[in-house]
């Protein structure tokens, strides 16, 4: 793109606030007591759900993975590993959740587990979706990095299922 004078404020919002500086808010997210599960707990939940073909007696999803990693939507030379599961996995940019048609694909019944790169952005997804009544969403502690670190099963998909077309 040719921009020639780029600098990085590596401290970001976290350091900015820590230093006592003001921030601005256009649309503050509601407070929400978002919960996280760790990679071992998620593995157990996946295994339990898969034993029931990922559905409860009423045919509702027991477990859905909501993968919010941006890298799925960028050009890449290397395949992006996903969590290995037979249960549904939805791929989405965090900002896709702004669109009602995208949110409509997120189940309101059964567990939904958000996946981010390191677990830092999950809380924003939970807080945002709580505005629309979602109470069944938890985050994965330490994100995909934590999953891979424990050598839990991964898979490379031929294609992903974007939540928004």
């Amino acid at each position, binding site marked *: 793109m040719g*921009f*020639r004078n780029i600098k990085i404020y*590596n401290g970001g919002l976290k350091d900015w606030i820590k230093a006592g500086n003001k921030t601005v808010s256009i649309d503050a997210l509601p407070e929400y007591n978002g919960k996280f599960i760790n990679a071992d707990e998620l593995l157990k939940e996946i295994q339990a759900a898969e034993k029931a073909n990922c559905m409860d007696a009423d045919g509702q999803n027991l477990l859905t993975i909501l993968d919010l990693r941006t890298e799925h939507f960028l050009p890449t030379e290397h395949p992006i590993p996903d969590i290995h599961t037979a249960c549904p996995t939805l791929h989405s940019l965090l900002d896709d959740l702004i669109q009602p048609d995208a949110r409509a694909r997120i189940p309101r019944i059964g567990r939904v587990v958000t996946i981010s*790169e390191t677990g830092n952005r999950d809380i924003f997804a939970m807080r945002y979706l709580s505005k629309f009544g979602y109470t069944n969403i938890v985050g994965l502690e330490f994100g995909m990095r934590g999953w891979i670190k424990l050598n839990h099963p991964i898979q490379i998909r031929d294609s992903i299922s974007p939540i928004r077309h």
Partner: protein
Amino acid sequence: MEKYILLSMTCICLLGTSVAAMERFDIVTTHELQQMLEKRSQGDIDFLLVNTLDEIIFRHSAIPGSINLPWSQVSTNAAALGADKNKMIVTY
């Protein structure tokens, strides 16, 4: 570390050059950014402060005087940065 990598990727997109271009990226400290924003408000310098986080996060909380260009959109919405390729851009 992840944040630095993402910011660097954004910068590489903006530069439109190779990974070797990472050597060009200066790091701005909190104190320096405070001073730069002060000078900008006085008209002494001009630069763009670009928040590369998701719009949902930006709207929730951002540094005053910044614009939002999520890094997933850098390649498609670079026009938001203007046409002056020499203008200073500070990303966070």
